[in-house]
């Protein structure tokens, strides 16, 4: 597809479970970002990849959160031992080179932890 694709679009899980959220960026975009958005708030930065490496993971809230991008394309955000406070929309965005360029966002994955 032409845009950023995120799966699943919705995920309901129980407290304590493990969750994976996937992001397929626009082909050729080397920069990939994960944001988290709670209701009524702006997107909150989590992590930034340039190619395969996590250039900045300073936004990850704690060590339950981890993200990978092994081949420099698809990225997976992994959340262990989910908590109710993790409930949010997780947004993935990509840009051509990173830096100050336009971000193209996916539709997001809505995570609900019961």
């Amino acid at each position, binding site marked *: 597809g032409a845009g950023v694709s995120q799966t699943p679009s919705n995920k309901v899980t129980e407290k304590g479970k493990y969750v994976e959220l996937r992001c397929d960026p626009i082909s050729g975009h080397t920069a990939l970002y994960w944001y988290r958005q709670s209701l009524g*708030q*702006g997107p909150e*930065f989590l992590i930034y990849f340039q190619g395969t490496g996590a250039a900045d993971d300073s936004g990850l809230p704690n060590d339950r959160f981890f993200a990978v991008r092994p081949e420099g394309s698809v990225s997976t955000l992994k959340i262990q031992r989910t908590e109710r406070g993790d409930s949010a929309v997780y*947004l993935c965005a990509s840009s051509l080179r990173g830096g100050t360029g336009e971000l193209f966002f996916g*539709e997001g994955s809505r995570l609900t932890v019961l």
Partner: protein
Amino acid sequence: GQQVMQIPQYQHVQEGEDFTTYCNSSTTLSNIQWYKQRPGGHPVFLIQLVKSGEVKKQKRLTFQFGEAKKNSSLHITATQTTDVGTYFCAPGGSNYKLTFGKGTLLTVNP
């Protein structure tokens, strides 16, 4: 990332009225981007401002970057129902990280 304050938090207007949202920083910004998010949707890029005092127009939308590069504004002339959504400013630092403001939610009464 850079921290900004967006005001107002909410704005309700009658269709045809003008609308302005402001983004203020206590520090000098390298650049600033604006995004629009429709209800239930994802943020969509509108514009990037880089130069001091820059003014850019997109049809009914006018974007300004302050002379001191500490504030920015988005003005919509003669709002339409299609303008409904949340408008975010996102200052960029000298690096790649975009930090989003809390946004201004615009509702338009037809």
